[in-house]
């Protein structure tokens, strides 16, 4: 098996060196940090992503709760930095952590309330940082897809054309490219290209899918024996491609984008509604139903009282002269 690869790779190996000198390699590493309190599904999702990133490095759960980054920090002068992104999670410290482990990219999975997952993508030395809300998470294991890929092979990154439309999406595209794209010649990367990572935009959200590239022999072959021969000759070229999904699946909603650490927010998604808001609205809706009903009950009692139909309280009916109680008293 090694021989096969060598024979494929051997001629090619000498090429780039001679062509454009010692090829400058894009060196990039990604630190993947979960927060304290992620659920098993979040963790599995993270591990799935990590499995496809040979240039990634996992760190232990980041405990931002005991450390109180936000409060120990002296308050900024009045009005200054009303909102510095990431102070509550200790982003600066996370950044240092990344730097200590030689990583220039950071993915931070922040779990809130044991149910909401936020993903922070950051370029380490000086931003930008983007915060996503993760929804529709499905891990590889849950999905039972038949696709599979080499661990550490470099993915083709497929972006929606919409990514080139808006500046903030272009920044996000670059961040995706640099975090999820495996740099050429990364240490643990494997030679062949057998999967594709697709980033699409629909409904204002970013949808991530991972597919295996499955090459099958072309079906459209003519009948002659001669053509069969030729087909066997250039089999490498004449293959159909189809894709098999591998998993995981995530949908990301952009929340904010920050230019640099501790810097101003340069993009904020107006359409994002926090899951807390959604939940509380739901609860309120439910409570509203009950409140309306109980109000109705009280109203009815009052009405009855006004009509003198209640034994206790309310108005008394004026006694009629023809009332049987009057007549036969």
């Amino acid at each position, binding site marked *: 098996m090694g021989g096969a690869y060598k024979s494929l790779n051997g001629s090619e190996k000498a090429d780039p060196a001679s062509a454009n000198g010692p090829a400058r390699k894009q060196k990039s590493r990604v630190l993947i940090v979960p927060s304290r309190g992620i659920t098993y599904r979040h963790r599995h999702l993270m591990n799935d992503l990590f499995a496809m990133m040979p240039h990634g490095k996992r760190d232990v759960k980041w405990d931002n709760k005991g450390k109180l980054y936000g409060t120990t920090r002296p308050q900024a002068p009045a009005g200054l930095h009303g909102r510095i992104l990431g102070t509550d999670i200790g982003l600066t410290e996370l950044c240092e952590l990344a730097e200590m482990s*030689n990583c220039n990219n950071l993915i931070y999975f922040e779990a809130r309330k044991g149910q909401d997952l936020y993903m922070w993508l950051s370029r380490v030395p000086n931003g930008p940082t983007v915060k996503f809300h993760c929804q529709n998470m499905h891990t590889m294991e849950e999905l039972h897809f038949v696709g599979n890929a080499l661990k550490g092979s470099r993915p083709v990154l497929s972006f929606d054309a919409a990514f080139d439309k808006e500046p*903030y999406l272009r920044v996000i595209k670059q961040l995706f490219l640099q975090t999820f794209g495996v740099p050429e010649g990364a240490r643990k990367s494997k030679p062949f290209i057998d999967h*594709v990572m697709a980033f699409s935009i629909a409904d204002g959200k970013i949808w991530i899918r991972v597919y295996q590239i499955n090459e099958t022999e072309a079906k459209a072959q003519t009948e002659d024996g001669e053509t069969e021969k030729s087909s066997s000759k250039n089999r490498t070229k004449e293959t159909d491609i189809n894709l098999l999904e591998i998993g995981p699946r995530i949908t990301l909603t952009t929340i904010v984008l920050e230019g*640099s650490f501790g810097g101003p927010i340069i993009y904020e998604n107006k359409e994002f509604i926090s899951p807390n808001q959604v939940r509380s609205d739901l609860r309120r809706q439910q409570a509203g139903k009950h409140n309306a009903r109980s109000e109705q009950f009280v109203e009815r009692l009052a009405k009855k009282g006004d009509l003198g139909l209640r034994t206790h309280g309310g108005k008394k009916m004026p006694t009629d002269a023809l009332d049987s109680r009057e007549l036969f008293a």
Partner: protein
Amino acid sequence: MVTKSRLKMALAHEKGVDFKKLHQKKVAKQASKKKQSKTGGAAKDGEAEEWEDEEEETKGGAPIDDEDDEDDSEDDDEEGHDVAAYLDDSASSDSEVEMEEKIARVRQPKQSELKQKANNKKAVAAVEEDEDDDDEEDPEEDIALEDLEDLSDAEKEDLVPHQRLTINNTTALEMALKRISLATDKSVPFKSHMTLSSVEPTADNIPDVMDDLKRELAFYGQALETVKQARSLLKAENVPFSRPKDYFAEMVKDDGQMEKVKARLIEEASAKKASAEARKLRDLKKFGKQVQVNKLQERQKAKKETLDKIKTLKRKRAENSGDLGTHEADLFDVGIEEELGKPDKKRGADRSGDRPNNKRMKKDQKYGFGGKKRHSKSGDAMSSGDLSGFSQKAMKQGTKGKPPKTARLGKSRRNAGKR
């Protein structure tokens, strides 16, 4: 380019320790300076000047100068950071920001300073950023910028009731993009980034996001389109693309997981097959019953016909019975056989199914048949074997499906009726 970076590396290796110390010294100096002149904006100005000075130096193109802020982090981990790589192609602005950031980080204990610093940095780097923010004054100085932030904060508070504040600072976004972007155009080999964009936005192919099938199909289409392009590009660059069948290495999903997937597939397939078979059997059964009924009817019909024929024959015999020869019985037999076209053997069986004669029937009617009438309606092997009236569906549904004819009243109302 390359030689420059090499030189830088070499220098970094040589001077790494020195620079660190120098750096720290510098930082300490600055801190003390700052403390001294903390009262006014003078400190800031001084600082800014300093930074500008340094920036100028770096911009001046002395490779060693912009090295000194690099090697802080990079003396021990060249492989980790691609900052050096970016430094090569991206402009000196990268190094600027980096330098500022680095220092800010070193001086972290002084948090307030850090913030001022950050602000300074913004003032320097993001003067343009804020220009296109719709309703702001021109941020010329640091203080102005702060004021501006103040303003925007107040605005925020004002705006919240009406609408979420939209921040979309295009210039800043462009700057950030310029700072971090890797080249993905034609100038670099495709294999270095392996990134492709689809021709048209995927959202166009999704009429309804909630429609899972169409949506996933659109995503698939996008991926497939780009993969096809990518393959041709990679093949052109002589990159090994397809994995040979005999290349075994660790996969993303391990064997256990794949085994599970396979087992699931098999289970699904077998369940489908089993259900199809069951349906076929059911249909056959239904059809078989029909066949059985038809057969019974046919048999009955045939029986009736034969009986009729026998009757007519008998009548004929009775008409010309006057001159009967010695072979009367034989002739009778032959006649029947001719009429029926049936072999002799069957006659016995047929007769057993015959009705008894009329006299007997009359008597049976009058006096009863003699046999027992008890249990005549109880089930026997035939009746209990007859499943024509049975339906599995009805059994499983139970009585839940149809509502009771007369609803049973609640307990209180029933009891009220009694009293």
